[in-house]
């Protein structure tokens, strides 16, 4: 398959557009899920949608994508609010509630799916594409539905931006200001459920949660601003959707879901390591740099204590007397010399006036910092 096919082939264009929109809406709403510490809610919702898919097929008897989405939406919402009910009304903790609803709904859904498979009805084939997703089955109208939902959720996000932002960072304060936090909570949860349900056809029930989390978790590493994070997450999501679809389309019998998830996961890995502010790489570099700095200062202080006892500060000393002190290496000594704090001649060192001043004022600096 050539890259140019994306722009000429009608089906491919539809699919690419669909996954891009899907990735964008998931990234956008996923940011809220991640920041509200509801990351695993997405996992539970997507699994909880499965019985809805099966039941809507059992009732209508046809494999109409819209009915199936409606069924998935209803059962996803039932699952979500049951989770909230369990956490609120019983002593079971949220992790137990999530795991319970996730596995029980999914098990019930699988029971119904296997039941449907045995039914004497030729129509049922292809329901299991909802397990791992098959982007190839996306039609133009599916993409339209996605685009409309994305548009609506974008408008709602912008309308309630201030309130949602406040809710994310300080729910109690939001309440005291008189905003209806319950309404806001239901609003954002409903849209998250909607995004998940939309993605079921493409990414599948099992892996949909990663689609929600990964772009947002990656975007979080690059910024501390909610607005930037949402936009970045949408971009990451769209890219992983498109790239994942392209890769899975180029190979035989590869479901789209797993490939998209792996692409999104690599975005996360890259962000974890290379993001300048929070990334592991730069954190390690900063850590080492400050450790080296500390070693340097320690060596200089040690020298200062020796020099202090002499009248002439530039009186040379043997390097050997530094030996009982572990912090010094040849490198630190040359570095100190470079900064003109000491002078080295053969195996002797002598402190310069500049070095003496630096070492003496180091204590003042530290003292001032502590004040």
């Amino acid at each position, binding site marked *: 398959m050539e890259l140019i096919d994306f722009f000429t082939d009608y089906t491919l264009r539809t699919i690419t557009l669909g996954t891009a929109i899907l990735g964008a809406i998931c990234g956008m709403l996923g940011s809220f899920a991640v920041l509200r510490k509801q*990351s695993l809610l997405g996992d539970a919702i997507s699994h909880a949608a499965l019985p809805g898919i099966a039941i809507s097929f059992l009732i209508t008897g046809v494999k109409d994508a819209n009915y199936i989405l409606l069924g998935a939406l209803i059962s996803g919402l039932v699952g979500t609010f049951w989770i909230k009910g369990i956490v609120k009304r*019983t002593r079971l903790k949220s992790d137990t509630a999530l795991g319970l609803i*996730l596995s029980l709904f999914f098990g*019930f859904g699988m029971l119904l799916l*296997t039941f449907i498979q045995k039914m004497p009805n030729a129509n049922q084939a292809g329901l299991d594409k909802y397990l791992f997703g098959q982007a190839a089955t996306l039609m133009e109208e599916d993409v339209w539905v996605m685009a409309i939902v994305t548009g609506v959720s974008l408008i709602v996000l912008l309308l309630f931006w201030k309130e949602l932002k406040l809710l994310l960072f300080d729910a109690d304060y939001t309440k005291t200001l008189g905003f209806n936090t319950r309404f806001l909570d239901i609003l954002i949860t409903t849209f998250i459920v909607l995004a998940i349900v939309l993605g079921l056809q493409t990414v599948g029930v099992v892996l949909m949660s990663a689609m929600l989390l990964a772009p947002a*978790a990656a975007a979080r590493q690059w910024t501390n601003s909610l607005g930037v994070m949402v936009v970045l997450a949408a971009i990451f999501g769209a890219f992983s959707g498109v790239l994942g679809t392209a890769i899975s389309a180029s190979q035989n019998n590869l*479901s789209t*879901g797993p490939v998209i998830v792996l692409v999104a996961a690599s975005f996360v890995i890259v962000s*974890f390591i290379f993001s300048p502010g929070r990334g*592991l790489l730069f954190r390690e570099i900063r850590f080492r740099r400050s450790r080296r700095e500390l070693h340097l200062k320690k060596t200089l202080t040690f020298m200062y204590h020796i020099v202090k006892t002499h009248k002439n500060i530039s009186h040379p000393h043997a390097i050997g007397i530094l030996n009982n002190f572990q912090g010094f290496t040849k490198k630190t000594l040359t570095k100190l010399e470079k900064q003109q704090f000491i002078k080295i001649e053969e195996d002797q060192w002598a402190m310069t006036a500049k070095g003496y001043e630096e070492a003496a004022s180091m204590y003042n600096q530290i003292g001032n910092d502590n004040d």
Partner: protein
Amino acid sequence: MTNAQLEIQLIASLVALACALPGTFLVLRKMAMISDAISHAILPGIVLGFFITHDLNSPVLILLAALTGVITVVFVEFIQKTGLVKEDTAIGLVFPALFSIGVILIAKNANDVHLDIDAVLLGELAFAPFDRLLIDGMDMGPKSLWVIGSILSISLVLLFLFFKELKLSTFDKGLATTLGFSPIILHYGLMTVSSVTIVGAFDAVGAVLVVALIIAPAATAYMLTDDLKKMLILSSLFGVFSAIAGYWMANIMDASIAGSMTTVLGVLFLFVYLFAPKQGVLSGFFRERRQRLEVSLLVFLLHLQNHKEEEERHVNHLREHINWQKVRAKKVLELADKNNLVFISENIVSLTDKGLEFTDEALKYITTNKATDIEDLKNRFFLFRG
């Protein structure tokens, strides 16, 4: 009932038992979702193990896959420690990625691997009796029966050996540490047992439903008891019940056994969720209603005690004064009357001697203890509760 049917039920019951034991501790330690992560993340381990051993029941494969599970836990904890994302996000990121790798490995090697995606999600309990263990040509029963049987016995032995330590570290980590039990060893021990159990059960019930077998019996039992031993026994019972009832339901519907076991667990949980005597939603609802009524009663009685003048104690005035709706006022009045706390003559309500005594004591209790928790008093004075 044929021999194969009996064997399937036996395997299913042992799987449910083996899952219920670690599940109890996972639920109590608030680590239920870790089981979800492990059950997904072991898939690549199982597939790689299968490439090496070509036998789904081989101990090497089980150990390899269990190792993947433990590595997942370590990996999740590593990401949590970096502080880059929140705890739950770390779980949510790691397992879908590993599961995806597993699914792709299966899809790419569909011809070599005797594993299909359906089996990954649902297990192959129905086929378990056909894979038999032969020693010197002797039929020793299904292989998976031996596998899950040995896993169950090992975890039972470990449970008996370390029950005290597990209990202590589950409920009071700090105390366990000061007493010299290493929480880290216990933690990873539990994780290892969970991983091995999940791998053993994976074959029978698949990746997602093993989570149901781990969490649901324990959660259901936790709604019914406060005692760890009782909770372990109850969750084992629920697990075995779901295995047997689930098998027969699947038999009737001609559908997946694992799915039907989970559905039985789901119905069981729903039932307990609604009707559990202390923790249930309905009992909570009634308790709340009773408390509301009894607080109203107390307010009413204190009001009566405060006012000697008759116009303040007229039935109609009372309703206006305390601003209650008609039904509510009537209920409160009836309750007070039934308990002989008040008497009504010519529409004037007065406290009886018993009513006076009750309000005096209640007032004294509330003012001295700065608390409104007068359950003892209520038990002594009330013949009828709200």
